[in-house]
């Protein structure tokens, strides 16, 4: 008994020293190898008298376990030490730049179209589209603007033939005509898209974007029009209050017609929408003219409703503080990078229109 206790103490002592893996393994062999000291004691068990054997076996086992545990923990300790010292040598400068990533951008006009669609979707409008090339009938005549109407002069039209039959649409209103001709009332649509007028200076560009709105049902009146636009403008500019003014105006395809101004002020050189004593014209609207309804085979005695047209680029300029309309279409990489939106910023009702 005292022999094995001696061995135990001796080896436990040895294992306290600063050892490497090889020397621990060596100790392991000396104890538990084929001719290891502990192994040899186990071999002697059979020759002991029965009464002693039991006790000795039990002592031997507990010593064996104790040594085994010590060896395991020693090995563990050494391994940890080795890993730690290895990691110490592997340290990199994490302040070096990350791998290159590229980030794309969504054009502000596209973003604004998505914002507009999201807002109108909330109040039940769906999106319709129409061709960029129109014939004179859809762009003018069907919209109560016959050939001899002076209002045609207000649109500087691009023509594609000498008979002035084919043209680039001057507004998105022909989508109204196409939608109503192809369906049955009620209609509740918006139609965003490219529009064209041969006009080019700081505030006009030969191509720009409009969104047309149309709501036709049995009892849609000017109060609904006001409510719809009030809701839209407030949502779009993300303000609680908006100063809005409806002014009588004239468009051949609506009657009564109105232009809508919103209040604004200049604060620190920036335009602030909603308050203030200045007025800014932002859209034209009105009740769809009975002649237009007749032209698209909708009975004006049964159905009525409103239409509106808003300049999309202009809205974007106001909301995001863009000064120059022409810059929208000049593809300056710096401009696109600055005014563009992250593609993951999809305007939606539940996440909000914009960050």
């Amino acid at each position: 008994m005292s022999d094995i206790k001696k061995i135990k103490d001796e080896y436990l002592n040895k294992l306290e020293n600063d050892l490497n893996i090889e020397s621990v393994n060596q100790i392991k062999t000396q104890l538990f190898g084929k001719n290891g000291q502990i192994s040899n004691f186990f071999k002697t068990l059979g020759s002991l008298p029965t009464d002693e054997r039991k006790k000795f076996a039990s002592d031997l086992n507990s010593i064996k376990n104790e040594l085994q545990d010590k060896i395991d923990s020693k090995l563990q300790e050494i391994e940890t030490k080795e890993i730690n010292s290895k990691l110490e040598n592997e340290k990199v400068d994490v302040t070096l730049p990350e791998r290159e990533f590229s980030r794309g951008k969504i054009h502000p006009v596209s973003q604004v179209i998505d914002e507009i669609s999201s807002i109108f979707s909330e109040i039940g409008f769906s999106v319709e589209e129409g061709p960029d090339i129109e014939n004179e009938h859809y762009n003018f005549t069907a919209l109560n603007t016959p050939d001899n109407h002076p209002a045609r002069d207000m649109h500087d039209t691009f023509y594609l033939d000498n008979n002035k039959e084919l043209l680039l649409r001057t507004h998105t209103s022909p989508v109204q005509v196409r939608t109503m001709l192809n369906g049955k009332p009620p209609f509740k649509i918006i139609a965003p898209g490219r529009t064209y007028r041969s006009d080019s200076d700081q505030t006009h560009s030969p191509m720009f974007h409009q969104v047309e709105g149309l709501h036709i049902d049995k009892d849609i009146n000017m109060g609904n029009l006001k409510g719809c636009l009030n809701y839209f403008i407030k949502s779009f500019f993300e303000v609680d209050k908006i100063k809005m003014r409806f002014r009588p105006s004239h468009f051949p395809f609506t009657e009564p017609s109105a232009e809508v101004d919103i209040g604004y002020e200049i604060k620190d050189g920036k335009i602030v929408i909603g308050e203030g004593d200045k007025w800014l014209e932002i859209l034209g609207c009105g009740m769809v003219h009975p002649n237009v309804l007749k032209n698209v085979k909708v009975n004006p005695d049964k159905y009525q409703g409103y239409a509106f047209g808003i300049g999309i680029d202009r809205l974007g300029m106001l909301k995001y503080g863009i000064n120059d309309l022409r810059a929208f279409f000049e593809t300056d990489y710096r401009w696109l990078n600055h005014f563009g939106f992250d593609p993951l910023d999809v305007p939606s009702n539940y996440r909000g229109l914009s960050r």
Partner: protein
Amino acid sequence: MKFTIGWLKEHLDTQKKDNELIEKLTDIGLEVESFENQSSGLDSFKVAKIINAEQHPNADRLRICDVDIGLDNTVKVVCGAPNAKKDLLTIYAGPGSIIPKNNMKLSVSKIRGVTSYGMLCSESELNLSNESEGITELRTSKYSDKIGKNFFKSNTEKVVDLSITPNRPDCLGVRGIARDLAAAGAGKLKKISLKNIKKNESQKIKVSITKDKNQGCTIFGSCLIEGVTNKESPQWLKEKIISLGQKPISAIVDITNYVMLDLNRPLHAYDADKIDKEIIVRNSKMGETFEALDTKEYKLGDDMCVISDKSGVLGLGGIIGGARSGTEINTKNILLESAYFTPRSIRKTSKLLNIDTDAKFRFERGIDTQSIKLGLSKAAELISEICGGKVSNFDIQQTDKHEKNKIKFNISLFEKITGFKVNDSEIIKILTDLGFEVSKKNLELDLKIPTWRPDITQPIDIVEEIVRIKGYENIETLQPEKTKIKDTLNAQQKLFHFLQRSVASKGYFETITWSFTDSKINKIFKENLKEIKIVNPISSDLDVLRNSIFTNLTFYLKKNLDRGFKDISLFEIGPIFKGSQPGEQLTVIGAIKSGKISRLNWNEKDRIVDVFDVKKDVIQTLVEAGYDRQSFFVRDKSPSYYHPGKSGSVYLDKDEIDPVAYFGEIHPNILKKLDIKTEGLVGFEIYMDYLRENKIKLKDLKTNFEYSDYQKSERDFAFVVDKNVKAQDLIEIISSIDKSLIRTIKIFDIYEGENIPEGKKSIAINVTIQSSEKTLEESDLEKINKLIISTVETKSGAKIRS
């Protein structure tokens, strides 16, 4: 339309302040563009009186004057004039004034330690005379009760500029504006007072209107005034003309212009002695010519309405007069014309001849058919007053009665359209004030339309009249209803928005460029599409509709390269055009990428962009949009603007006719032609219209979740094949061997060169094999292994590399 408030008040009896009138105009649909002084800032010069003048403590020659400028307190002005003394009446200019002589702007300033608020002016400083010795001395008798009043009177009136919509010709005259304001409660419309001038003579020049088809003239009124002395207009008339920014010419011309601006009644004055015998209003004949007042010679077509005499055309009725019969300063006898021309004829003729005049603008919109006599009377009165002369009787030739139009108006329509109610009596008052003759029958109004309102033809027009006069602010704001008739976006629109953001998320900047482009650039990209010319382009380098998005993208890429950018990724999603009919367009995504990947990066080696960059972007975008990569088929055909060896087209399926996308390097010749300097340029196009709608919805896809837990095995193969054998074909051969076992096929190496025969290449392929029924045994794997090798060898002529 320009006018002054003073002029307006000749027709409108009102107590309203200027700004109230201005606001009212906007409220009733007469949009005020501007309201400002025609002359700049002359109303800041006031009549003033020096109350006290003291010596300046620090300067011998200066005095400190206490000046009464009509306010509660006097102001202190430091003045160097020797004549600045107590009780002198003079002219004071406050801070902010601009001195006419030198355009200096005054500000409050310290002069030798004493603050001076403005200055006292000399006549020379005000350009009144050359007198610069001392300040202006005003006569006490004339100015003592005018202290604080503006010194310059005639120029102080502000000019209103209205933007009149095309439906309101009546408001192209000051009187029409006054009438609208009166109806809106801003005052009372004054009666027109006409002096009774003696008209003893008969109108000696015979006038006739021919019965031509589509005769553009239906009334021709005239009056002969003999023995006039044409001269410069009197001051009041000149000032009126000048205040609107026009130039006075001579009394007779100014008077006709004045009547036109006042009553929207265009007139024309002929030199009666230059008329050959008689006036014939007729249709022109092809080839007739005449010289107009604008000194241009016009060649007429058939059926244009002309005023002529025995010798030929005198003028284009309602558009422009002729040089031959124009009045001059020595004109003795004049014939005044006051006529009605139909808008249709005016518009047709002026468009054909491309003439735009004030008269044309007015007749085109519709002139009051009952203003013929009023116009003649008013002008004759003024002419005889200013130029003398004997006025003849009026001769009125008329081929159409022009009776007043009638409308039956159901009062309930108003509330139905506007959503609010107005009393019947108020409705009747508004309409009466606007000039309607109204009689009420139960719930209906019988209306006779005033002849100056050609725009009013149906009940809805009446609704507009009432609501605009009553005020749009009375319309209620109703909460929008949320009921939806159909989905916000259809499948194609959803796809559009998805693809747009999908491409952007791969690092491309979205741009929007014109739908038109330079035909020279377009030729490079148009392939076999038709060139679509714009008849009236904004400039010669934007003369065609684009046949490809690459036209503008490459143009702007070059601009950005020239700005010093190198690694540029741009895309646009929008229309390209196939023909000039509505609908002959396709929606295309075009994207380009230039320069290098990982330029100047510390841990990755840079490389020039290549065909596989854009192929990845195309394929990934399509896969993200829900199309199955396994069925894609790529061919090496592509439009000629791509590098023939480094480009391709993508089909959703092997059997599809139209490719949904092209990708590749841009042809080097094009870079040369467009002078684009970059290390590499690649691009892709996705044709949205050829992307069929995905029939399998996400909800169906998701419910069908199948997977295998049995062990996978991987096997590598290296085949030596002819150089022109396509990887896609090998993959297809392998994948069709056993679709239930072969899960993925990856090409991990392509090798040509040493150990590989000339004209051959080695393709290394990794195949993953897994069953969804059992764990495969070595023998199963061996079997499929052999099958792969033998099938590839027979079908492609490949040899397995040992």
